[in-house]
């Protein structure tokens, strides 16, 4: 709304960082390519072999990673802005757990049927996320949405869904349970363009709706009554934004599993870097992308054993947020 040079600088900086992290991540493997060479190939140069390795083999994984990071982060930024509560993010409220429960149900009960994995899992994840979103919204609605009440209900719903998912893993076939567990940790293993393209289209479409709503979002942050007094159709804008946010989270769960903590941490990190009062949508998305791609690099290259990316994002995201909060408090109290 008001011209914020710092926010623009942060957006540009993050964009460069995401690009560099993608180059770094893509360059690593059995046939290493340096960061400048990788950048050259991504921007259209390089020889045939390099192009094959970068474009066909390695890039899709990083692209899925950055899309998923951006999607989760945007989803979290929207929930946190509307409820004015940093704890209200889709991973803590049970929305990603709902999407996961849906997906696991199909993996465990749907067997290995072709339809089950290519259409059934995404559809079930979408349905699970949306149903959970609607349920907590309705349970928390009392003449408007109040952040604290929503968080309490969301945490309870989250617990129920995690229990349900565990139950399915226990009663399911061991192979299905194994597949589901890897996926539940949030993994980018073996992701190809077949995963990246649909995710890009979906995230692009929903993300555009969300970015277009930032104008309304800036008024919604002042609370329902003030927003209404300023001529915002609160119920409508909230519904559109929350549905977009739930769809984003469900899409991301479909593409890479419920990668932990990104939706919660990325917006909070972004608002502290950009020093804005609420989570800035674009900067949050870029922060999320950087966190996931960076974590994937750590998970694949720096650790002795290759881990699912979700374990690393949780391990990195938590302490980093704590660091930022402590540093901000110090600055304020000085």
């Amino acid at each position, binding site marked *: 709304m008001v011209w914020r040079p710092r926010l623009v600088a942060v957006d540009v900086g993050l964009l460069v960082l995401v690009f560099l992290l993608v180059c770094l991540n893509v360059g690593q493997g059995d046939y290493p390519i340096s960061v400048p060479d990788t950048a050259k190939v991504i921007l259209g140069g390089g020889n045939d072999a390099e192009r094959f390795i970068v474009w066909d083999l390695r890039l899709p994984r990083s692209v899925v990673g950055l899309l998923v990071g951006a999607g989760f982060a945007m989803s979290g930024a929207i929930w946190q802005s509307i409820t004015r509560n940093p704890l209200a993010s889709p991973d803590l409220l049970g929305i990603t757990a709902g999407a996961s429960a849906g997906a696991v149900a199909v993996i465990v009960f749907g067997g290995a049927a072709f339809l089950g994995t290519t259409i059934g899992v995404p559809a079930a994840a979408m349905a699970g996320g949306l149903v959970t979103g609607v349920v907590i919204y309705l349970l928390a609605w009392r003449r408007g949405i109040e952040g604290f009440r929503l968080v309490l209900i969301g945490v309870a719903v989250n617990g129920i869904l995690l229990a349900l998912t565990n139950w399915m893993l226990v009663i399911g076939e061991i192979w299905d349970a194994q597949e589901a567990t890897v996926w539940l940790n949030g993994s980018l293993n073996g992701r190809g363009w077949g995963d990246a393209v649909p995710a890009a289209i979906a995230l692009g479409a929903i993300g555009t709706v969300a970015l277009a709503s930032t104008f309304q979002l800036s*008024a919604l942050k*002042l609370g329902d*009554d003030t927003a209404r007094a*300023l001529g*915002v*159709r609160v119920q409508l804008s909230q519904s559109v934004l929350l549905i977009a946010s739930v769809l984003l989270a469900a899409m991301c769960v479909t593409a890479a599993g419920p990668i932990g903590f990104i939706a919660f941490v990325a917006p909070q990190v972004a608002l502290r870097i950009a020093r804005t*009062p609420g989570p800035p949508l674009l900067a949050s998305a870029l922060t999320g992308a950087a966190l996931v791609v960076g974590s994937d690099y750590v998970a694949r290259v720096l650790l002795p054993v290759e881990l699912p990316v979700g374990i690393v994002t949780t391990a990195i995201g938590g302490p980093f947020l704590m660091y930022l909060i402590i540093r901000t408090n110090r600055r304020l109290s000085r």
Partner: protein
Amino acid sequence: MSEHQITAEDLVLAYGDRVVADGLTTEIPAGKVTTIIGPNGCGKSTFLRAVARLLKPRSGRVLLDGKAITSMRTREVAKVLGMLPQSPTAPEGLTVADLVAKGRHPHQSWLRQWSSDDETEVDAALRLTGMQELAARPVDELSGGQRQRVWISMALAQETDILLLDEPTTYLDLAHQVEVLDLVDKLHADLQRTVVMVLHDLNLAVRYSDHLIVMREGRIVTSGPPDELITAELLRDVFGLDSQVLVDPVSGRPMIVPIGVRRSAPTVQH
């Protein structure tokens, strides 16, 4: 004079199944300061919320220039009518300038988010409330009185002819209450805005209003200029308060002196 007119027509207001106010019919005089008074829980804030279209009436209508306010585009209403809700809270870290700038929201669109008009109005609002120096400070770091002035600045930047204030003096000490009400008076005197507010302090309501609406148990008991309205009898009937009504030596208007259980005689006794 403000050219916009608000009328309430047989309003029935309810939260869920609980009817809070019934049969509210009244006309708000344009270009004047109107205050709604009444005991706690009489429905005065609810009434103001309905006038501001924050609450949809169960039946009856609020008319803005003869048109039902709920049938108008809410953005168009927001250009004519501004509302300051009861004890609003700003997001942590939001600066004074940013909050006041939000008042321009109804005049902007996604494509045209900030213009020199907006700049001018925000500056003017900050100057009027004396908040220019604090423009860069976060709202949550300010004192109660300053914070209230910032919110009023936001409502001013909205540039509406009609301004609704729900208990603008809550949590303020007497000096700051007077300061906020002096500001309201200035809006009315200098800018000819129509102001409708809810106040708890009866003496301040009398002092700063041209028109009073007295409510009790969800109904309007009476309305009119304070001089004619305020009597010991009315205060007993509406508030259950025994009092003497004297003439305020400063304003010449009625002044209410409550008679409680504990009182001192005219001469001090030891």
